[in-house]
């Protein structure tokens, strides 16, 4: 219920949007789930670095990796 109320308020304040209850339930489910999805992979990736962070990983390095070019940072 807390997630649904958060979703209702967030969508209204951020986007001026009102949504039906069914959609709100789906959206709220994702709000609860998203941090859990990231938790384990992030912890594993951070643990593999000296600083315990992903400070030197830029998302646009993916394109460099796909096309065999030097990383951009």
């Amino acid at each position: 219920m807390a997630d649904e109320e958060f979703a209702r308020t967030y969508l209204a304040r951020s986007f001026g949007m009102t949504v039906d209850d069914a959609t709100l339930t789906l959206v709220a489910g994702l709000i609860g789930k998203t941090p859990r999805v990231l938790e384990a992979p992030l912890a594993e990736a951070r643990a593999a670095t000296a600083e315990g962070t992903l400070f030197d990983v830029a998302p646009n390095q993916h394109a460099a990796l796909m096309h065999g070019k030097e990383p951009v940072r």
Partner: protein
Amino acid sequence: MSDPALMTLTEAAAAVRAGEVTSEALAEACLARIAAAQDTLNAFIAVDAEGALAAARACDREAREGRFRGPLHGVPLAHKDMFYRKGQRCTCGSKIRADFVPGETAEVLDRLDAAGAVTLGTLHMSEFAMGPTGHNAQIGRCRNPWSPDHVTGGSSSGSGAAVAARLAFGALGSDTGGSVRLPAAFCGVVGLKPTQGLLSQHGMMGLSESMDCAGPLARSSADVAVLMDVLTGQGTHHADALSPPVSGLTVGLPTSYYFDGVEPEVQAALDAARRVLESAGVRVVDVDVPDHSAFAELANLVFTPEAAALHLPWLLERPEDYGPQVRARLMQGLTIPAVQHLQAKQLRVLHARAMIEGPLAACDALLTPALRRRVPTAAETDVAAGTAMAATIAAVSDMTRPLSYLGLPGLVTPVGRDEAGLPIAMQLIGRPREEGLLLALGRAHERATGWLAETPPVPGAMAG
């Protein structure tokens, strides 16, 4: 003469060049099959018979003068209705864009045009390319040529159905989470999701800038190789890759995730595919892969906010003009925090590198199912935006979505049929920019088996 539409793309192109068939005859044959099949399959959104025949006749005139535009001279194709062509309606499978007329032509269409392709029309797709089954709340679903009760896969639903039913010699689709590979797998044809960023996205409807890929579907890996050469402008790079023998290559079978819970019929077909590759001299080995179980969810964190950002004005102004499932998925994208979206993209770099430096360093390619289960029926997967939505989408796309997240190339080719006669397919995963190697492996399998030679029954069409 048997129906010329039953030739493969490479056979048709060679026949036009040799003067054995005219482009007009090819176009007429395809148009006859489209007319016969459209009510059943709903594979096309728009058919341009007049334009196709005019273009075909122009190709024939040039051929008589010994002039050939390129490797696709006079070959009829059709494409998912999301590749823009200047001045021609492009619906994106939606109500919202029902009357959209772009002011530019997609670069991939320009390349196909320049190579001499003839365009038959635009193909069915899931609304805004969101949906892995081929359902579409706005224009009705596309039906599988092997069994109209079953889904085609999506979102390039019409591309899979049209190529399988021999309505076109090849087609473009797009793949953000499996949208080329799933319809190819479900309809029993070959589909390639290229390396992320290899093909131009200019003039192609956007969904997720990080994960969108145009990709070809055709009736053989050799056909796909010709299309890739045209689409990339890389000469005969992909066609040439088919020549060296595949013996000595190593294909890995992931020991985790991809084969978990595979249905027995699918497993048996994949076992047979393994034996076919081994007979061709390929070494097939078990290989450990990093844990991919979270990748489908991570892909959602990348894709849905990007899609929601594109759709926000329409979500605010015309929410009722979306189908319920598409609207719900876009709404979910609005609530993913930017930081978590970016964290998923940071992890993408690390996971892709781990695959390239790990299993894809030990093996030339990986072999997985394209779908763990048999092709589902429309009734089984018609869940709209209900509580079963997430699970249904996951069950259909959990083999393909991880690869979209990683950005690696993936080829799908048929390896069998289930008890109901629906296709079963394997997915071959490769290193970045090594599509040619995947096509060589696919071709080796295809030459040793007859799955692509079988034609689904098309109502009113000539038999093969």
